[in-house]
């Protein structure tokens, strides 16, 4: 079994205006099969990717936001949202999707995957990572 590395996927773009949000999610999902120690961070406009109530019907393109709910099933449950980015955009955690995972180490108890962290906390988390993917 090869070494497990701490992987961090950083998301800083809004959804739909560019493809980075969706195509980065595809990497996270495929990457889950490689069983690394995965974290995902949402910073700056990236926080908008987790907004509730996305509806693309009138635009005529795919609404990929339901895919975030699947992250828990892929063992991706360290989802960090920067507090300063939320506040700058007038958002709170209540504006975001409710992402959950089942903790196999705690009798499959359902827990929140999203952790709102300050810039200082996120800086510490980033410092611990070994590989950082940017999109």
């Amino acid at each position, binding site marked *: 079994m*090869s070494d497990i590395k701490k992987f961090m996927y950083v998301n800083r773009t809004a959804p739909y205006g560019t493809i980075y949000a969706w195509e980065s999610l*595809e990497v996270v999902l495929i990457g889950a099969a490689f069983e*690394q120690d995965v974290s995902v961070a949402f910073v700056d406009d990236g926080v908008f990717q987790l907004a509730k109530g996305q509806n693309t019907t009138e635009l005529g393109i795919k609404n990929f936001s339901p895919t975030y709910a699947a992250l828990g099933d892929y063992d991706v449950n360290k989802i960090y949202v920067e507090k300063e980015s939320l506040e700058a955009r007038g958002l709170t955690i209540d504006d975001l999707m409710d992402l959950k995972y089942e903790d196999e180490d705690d009798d499959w108890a359902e827990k929140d995957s999203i952790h709102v962290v300050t810039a200082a906390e996120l800086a510490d988390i980033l410092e611990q990572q070994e590989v*950082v*993917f*940017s999109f």
Partner: protein
Amino acid sequence: MKFAIQVNEGPYNHEASVSALNFVRAAVDAGHEIFRVFFYHDGVNNGTRYTTPPQDDINIVKAWSELAEKHNMDLVVCVAAAQRRGIVDEGEQERNGKDGNNIAPGFRISGLGQLVEAGIQSDRLVVFGD
């Protein structure tokens, strides 16, 4: 050191591909190994053999193909991103019923797993993008 390189943008529209090319050349000159260069998002457009840039400017696609040949470098174009943007090799042409293919020499089309694997197997991942 073993490097994995991720290129997120196509030739000419963004500087990313040129920055990546220059970085890769410097890394090779310094004696390092390039484990893989993975082209994602519009970066897949670096893999078409049909560009005809002006004679007095860099031929970005050719520069990558030459690097691949000279150093046996692994240049991978992401299949999902390539399908969206129309970068096709013979296998994809047949699988998806296209009337031609356009992949440039030295490039191969493969899955996102190749990017993740490169992140695991390399010592450093360097990303060039918008």
